[in-house]
């Protein structure tokens, strides 16, 4: 069994903020757990900062592994044209893996620092606007750069991949995001794929994910002539499939699997800024072998348009 199996938990925690960063167009409320629908007009910027915390489910294997991760994910988007937007994201992470060694001693391995930066472009290929509603579809394509340290060590030697802030590899990702928005609600759906490449003899599995988000205006219930802040109730689902990692050319049977997260949340939306929070609850966990199961993820932050 490999402690690299814990990698999935950390990747999952960063998936919405700056991990699997994906990108719609000039819309508003936008999902909390993924970034595909971040709104940005031509010549304008949008910034999003989210704090993310997660801890793996209790481990029943003899290693008694426990992995926790805290991250601050920052995203900056710029509208190059009404249809083309560019985004950059940089996480700062603090990751810890505790386990019971063969001699029964408790060991903790940890690392913190800047993670891997992500750059991507999104282009709106379909836009159907009418009074009070819009339908949009946009593919996106990006790259994850190895800006995070990937060879950190402590007194016990080189840290496991699950704890390293960076992957050391240049990874590519892409997908499609669709949005339907009215004055009362917004629905977003995306499908995305990330191809992870090998670094340091470790090849993290590719990731396929499908996400849905519903944001429903709770307040004000009736629109008037003025424009107060809006409160949206949010319900999102994230389905993630990961294959098995490969280490030194060998497949790790205790890595990867399938996870379905259900995420209730709230957003307060004003003209220029949004505050938002969500709890991502792992409704279904199907890990391969003895891979660590992702636990609940708490995320909260703000967004600003400038």
């Amino acid at each position: 069994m490999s402690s690299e199996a814990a990698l999935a938990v950390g990747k999952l925690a960063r998936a919405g903020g700056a991990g699997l960063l994906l990108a719609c167009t000039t819309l508003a409320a936008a999902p909390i757990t993924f970034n595909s629908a971040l709104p940005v007009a031509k010549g304008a910027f949008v910034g999003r900062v989210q704090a993310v915390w997660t801890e793996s489910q209790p481990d029943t294997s003899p290693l008694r592994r426990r992995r926790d991760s805290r991250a601050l994910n920052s995203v900056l988007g710029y509208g190059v044209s009404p249809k083309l937007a560019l985004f950059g994201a940089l996480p700062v992470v603090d990751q810890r893996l505790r386990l019971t060694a063969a001699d029964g001693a408790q060991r903790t391995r940890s690392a913190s620092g800047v993670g891997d930066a992500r750059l991507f472009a999104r282009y709106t290929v379909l836009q159907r606007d009418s009074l009070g509603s819009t339908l949009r579809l946009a593919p996106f394509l990006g790259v994850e750069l190895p800006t995070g340290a990937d060879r950190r060590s402590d007194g016990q030697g080189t840290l496991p991949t699950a704890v390293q802030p960076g992957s050391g590899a240049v990874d590519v990702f892409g997908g499609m995001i669709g949005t339907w928005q009215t004055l009362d609600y917004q629905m977003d759906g995306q499908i995305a794929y990330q191809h992870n490449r090998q670094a340091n003899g470790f090849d993290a599995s590719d990731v396929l994910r499908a996400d849905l988000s519903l944001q429903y205006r709770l307040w004000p219930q009736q629109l008037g002539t003025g424009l107060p802040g809006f409160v949206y109730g949010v319900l999102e689902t994230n389905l993630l499939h990961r294959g098995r990692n490969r280490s030194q050319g060998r497949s790790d049977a205790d890595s990867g699997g399938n996870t379905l997260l259900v995420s209730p949340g709230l957003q307060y939306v004003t003209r220029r800024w949004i505050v938002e929070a969500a709890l991502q609850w792992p409704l279904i966990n199907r890990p391969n072998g003895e891979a660590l199961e992702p636990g609940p993820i708490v995320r909260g932050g703000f967004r600003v348009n400038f």
Partner: protein
Amino acid sequence: MVDISVKGMSCPFCVYSVEKKLNALDGVQTAKVDLKQGRARVVMQPGVPHDEQQLRQVIIDAGFTPGTIGPEAER
């Protein structure tokens, strides 16, 4: 005073984008958006005529689709 029908707006963030771009135009005194009506009302500085093509482009740049544009009295 000019009224612009703006299609695709659905929340305060949209309103900000449209108002910001309209208010940045030369000759515009004030611009206010009514989200419920899907309409932007632009007041030009005295003696300055509005440029319909320019107004349309601003709405497009903000990420939306312009509809009818014309003096308020004509709506």
